[in-house]
């Protein structure tokens, strides 16, 4: 007799299953493992909560000593001096300069590269360029920093152009940071433009528009929310980038008024201050977290804006 005859079939009494369908072995193991998976997912929320708590607790300590107003609007940053002052504006201006310069570089270059890859490049070329772009996006930022310091600032600015600048400048840091962000902006906006349906391009071409007109008037507007998301994410990366500015922008916290000046950014301050071994609970230690909190909130804002625009884009296509 075959071993493969059905379980219930032969012993079948009408209306009475041979083996009940009700589970006689509760799957505790299964339930437990699924619980663990759930915990792992929830942990990501815990991490965000952890970040907030880790930043908030010392920050609250900090704001007991320094008023929020003095912190946000004070124009002198000198946490280690005898007559300490905690106006964050110098750090903010340096961050604004480096990020602004970076975006001036990254937005046109990134979008240009994206338009080229999405609208003009032959599939073969695109297949080569995209992974190359991805690999370039993985160059460590210390290497970019070293390049900004030694080549851009020392060799080009001071050597070649003989510019009136010191060993560091927000311009060198910003320019190189811009190049670093190009792959991010290019890759996300290329995805957005490639997702625009071919039929829209054909419709435009059928009306006699050439490729440039189609790109500028049809593809670009259609992909706009995706492109904005890419740019906003680029802003967030520029504001949060540490090593390039720590190496090439300089270490003096002053209000920055020109691109050839040096300046300490928010991230640059955190990186630098962490070097000096500050005692847990000291004001110096709390200062780190106050600046970190400001940085986190700024990037959080940009991230949510970016995610919003990506959502909107996904909904359309």
């Amino acid at each position, binding site marked *: 007799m075959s071993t*493969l005859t*059905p379980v*219930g*079939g032969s012993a079948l009494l*009408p209306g009475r299953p041979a083996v009940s369908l*009700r589970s006689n072995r509760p799957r505790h193991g299964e339930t437990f493992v699924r619980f663990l998976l759930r915990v792992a997912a929830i942990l990501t929320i815990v991490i965000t909560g952890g970040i907030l708590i880790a930043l908030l607790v010392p920050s609250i300590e900090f704001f007991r000593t320094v008023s929020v107003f003095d912190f946000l609007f004070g124009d002198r940053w000198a946490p280690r001096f005898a007559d300490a002052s905690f106006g964050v504006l110098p750090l903010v201006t340096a961050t604004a300069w480096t990020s602004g310069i970076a975006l001036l570089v990254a937005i046109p270059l990134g979008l240009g590269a994206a338009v080229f890859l999405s609208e003009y490049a032959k599939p073969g070329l695109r297949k080569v360029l995209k992974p190359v772009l991805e690999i370039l996006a993985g160059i460590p930022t210390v290497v970019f920093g070293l390049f900004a310091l030694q080549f851009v600032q020392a060799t080009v600015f001071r050597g070649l152009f003989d510019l009136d600048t010191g060993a560091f400048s927000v311009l060198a840091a910003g320019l190189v940071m811009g190049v670093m962000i190009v792959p991010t902006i290019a890759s996300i906006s290329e995805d957005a433009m490639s997702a625009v349906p071919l039929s829209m391009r054909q419709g435009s071409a059928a009306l006699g528009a050439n490729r440039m007109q189609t790109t500028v008037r049809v593809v670009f507007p259609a992909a706009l929310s995706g492109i904005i998301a890419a740019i906003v994410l680029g802003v967030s990366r520029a504001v949060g980038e540490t090593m390039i500015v720590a190496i090439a922008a300089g270490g003096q916290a002053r209000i920055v008024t020109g691109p050839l000046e040096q300046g300490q950014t928010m991230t640059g301050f955190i990186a630098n201050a962490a070097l000096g071994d500050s005692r847990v609970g000291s004001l110096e230690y709390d200062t780190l977290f106050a600046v970190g909190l400001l940085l986190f909130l700024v990037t959080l804002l940009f991230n949510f804006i970016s995610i919003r625009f990506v959502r909107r884009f996904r909904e359309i296509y």
Partner: protein
Amino acid sequence: MPTKTRAASYTTGSDQKPTIHFPAEHAERSAALPTVPNAIIECKDVNVYYNAFRAVTGVDLSFGSKEITALIGPSGCGKSTLLRSLNRMNDLIDGARVEGSVTFQGEDIYHKEVDAIEVRRRIGMVFQKPNPFPKSIYDNIAYGPRVIGLKASNMDDLVEEALTRAALWPEVKDKLKQSAFGLSGGQQQRLCIARTIAVKPDVILMDEPCSSLDPIATSRIEDLMYELREDYTIIIVTHNMQQAARVADRTAFFTALASEETGDRTGLLVEYDLTKKIFESPADQRTEDYISGRFG
């Protein structure tokens, strides 16, 4: 000019639109149902919903043990939906909900204490597109017995037997360790049947198992179904009426009707009888139209 065309097609459309009142239709049809001796699965007033949309309405249907039952009807009339509700595969679809009762050997499979996994173990399923696992032929067969913890004294023998019963053994016995993806479409589908047999179910559900196969592969599967009927109950959805006529003991004909209020199309059972009766002297005009190719 364009306006005119649109208007014309609109009138034709509304002329052809069948007007049906569900409750009346339902009552009339149930009375005509033949009794199935030795039923293994029984549906009573089964409604299946996808969220608010009712895909299947008021189905009363019994499936005879060790018989082949065919479900036929135009596409979109809810055959697959009904089939999936027989082994709780609908549980896996977001928003799908079954009302009414489906019993297997007298036990309500939707009872809250019933284990859907046990239901699927006893009521296996073969899909429209062959879906072998990305594993070796051997592991495809051995997978089911392994996961359900079937005590097989010798897995090799079990694999051989399942493949033999699915009429695949001679073709694959020398390449058991090779990937199942290397098989032809028809072989893959027989592998899927063998895989299902290996867990010793009582019932095998098949959702258009031959729709992606050529005629030769199709006829091999039909032969196979006929042999399997010795030990298994088979319920097959098919869009191929000849296939239903060739293999099925009984045939159920479904159709989709648009509701008057919402315009949503919902599936319902029109006629269920011995296959011979359905194909030779259907009681319902719509069945006859469908069988003779005038509709659907």
